[in-house]
């Protein structure tokens, strides 16, 4: 099997998870697709760095998240933002706040979905990242630490703060 075939067999099944992560980190659908494509090309160039028995999912999602955070920093005109600096992200988020859901729309049949999505969007990208990886992609702490490039202790504390914020917001909105 050629390198390209082996790569496709390894990475194409991960595109759903990659795109989901990219869409949750970047607001624009086109930006998310660009980030996934860029990540796939990068991953192909560095395919040799994936060891024989290594799980490809955290490896590839790590490349995707780096492409996303680079795009985010570029989008906000602050290429100097440290990708792990939550305070800087909070400050930037305050300048470009997430859209607040229209209460009337939120009362419709898709109420839960609207509220849950809005609560996720309200998290800062570093917190949103660990929640999406844990709750939507089902990664364990060790894999999340590899994807995000942070210690496991940080994964746990970040997850717990993200959960607290989500609970607060969802309860305020009246969800059980």
């Amino acid at each position, binding site marked *: 099997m050629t390198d390209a075939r082996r790569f496709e067999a390894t990475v*194409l099944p991960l*595109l759903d998870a990659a795109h989901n992560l990219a869409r949750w980190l970047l607001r624009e659908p086109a930006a998310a697709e660009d980030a996934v494509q860029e990540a796939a090309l990068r991953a192909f160039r560095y395919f040799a760095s994936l060891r024989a028995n290594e799980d490809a999912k955290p490896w590839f999602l790590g490349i995707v998240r780096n492409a996303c955070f680079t795009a985010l920093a570029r989008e906000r005109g602050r290429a100097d933002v440290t990708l792990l600096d939550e305070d800087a992200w909070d400050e930037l988020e305050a300048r470009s706040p997430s859209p607040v859901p229209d209460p009337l729309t939120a009362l419709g049949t898709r109420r839960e979905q609207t*509220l849950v999505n809005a609560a996720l969007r309200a998290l800062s990208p570093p917190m949103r990242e660990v929640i999406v990886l844990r*709750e*939507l992609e089902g990664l364990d702490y060790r894999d999340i630490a590899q994807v995000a490039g942070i210690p496991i202790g940080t994964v746990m504390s970040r997850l717990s703060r993200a959960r607290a914020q989500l609970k607060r917001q969802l309860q305020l909105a009246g969800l059980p």
Partner: protein
Amino acid sequence: MNDDDLTRLLQQHASRHPADERLRAAVRTQITLQAAAQEKPAEKPTWRERFARLLRIHPALAGAGGLALGLVLTMFVVPRLNNDVALPEELVAAHVRALQVGPLYEVASSDRHQVKPWFQGRLDYAPTVLDEPLREQGFALLGGRVQAVQNRPTAVLAYQVRLHKIDLYIWPAERGAAPEKLQRRGFNLVRWSDGAMQYWAVSDVDGAELERFAAAWRTAAAH
């Protein structure tokens, strides 16, 4: 609300965004292009190597009389054969380079009245440019560029069909020739000649589709 309640809410109600077919196709195309670009192009033999090879194939030519004949063959016949062999590879490499680092077109227009005049003063011939009759068949003109092929500035027209790009290389030819289909490194090529010009279409679109492009072009050009 405890952590389990929150997990349940998120898993039931948060939006999921799977990759669609278009994104999958785009990723596959990029990987194919990247893989093709990483392959090393075959090195062209020098005339010395060609001459040495010729002597190995025809030991009789090593004689004094044969030497002169061999020299003539080497200088006039063999280079031409070799060029013919190397041309498809060169066209595929040129096509990949244009897709990867660009430009895919130096004049961007779907109007042949914009594209054709752009070639004036850039080439010592005037290539035919077709837009509407090909668009009707699903092949949209994106623009044109000049690119070196066999060390000569050559007209290239870029077309798009669905997600695929087609490059059409055009240069003067002496004789007409019926279409011929080739394949190199996963790319399809169709060549033909109308007696005045030689045409080479290069694309990653499938062979039948590229032949349809050639047929549409020949029909439209004949009118």
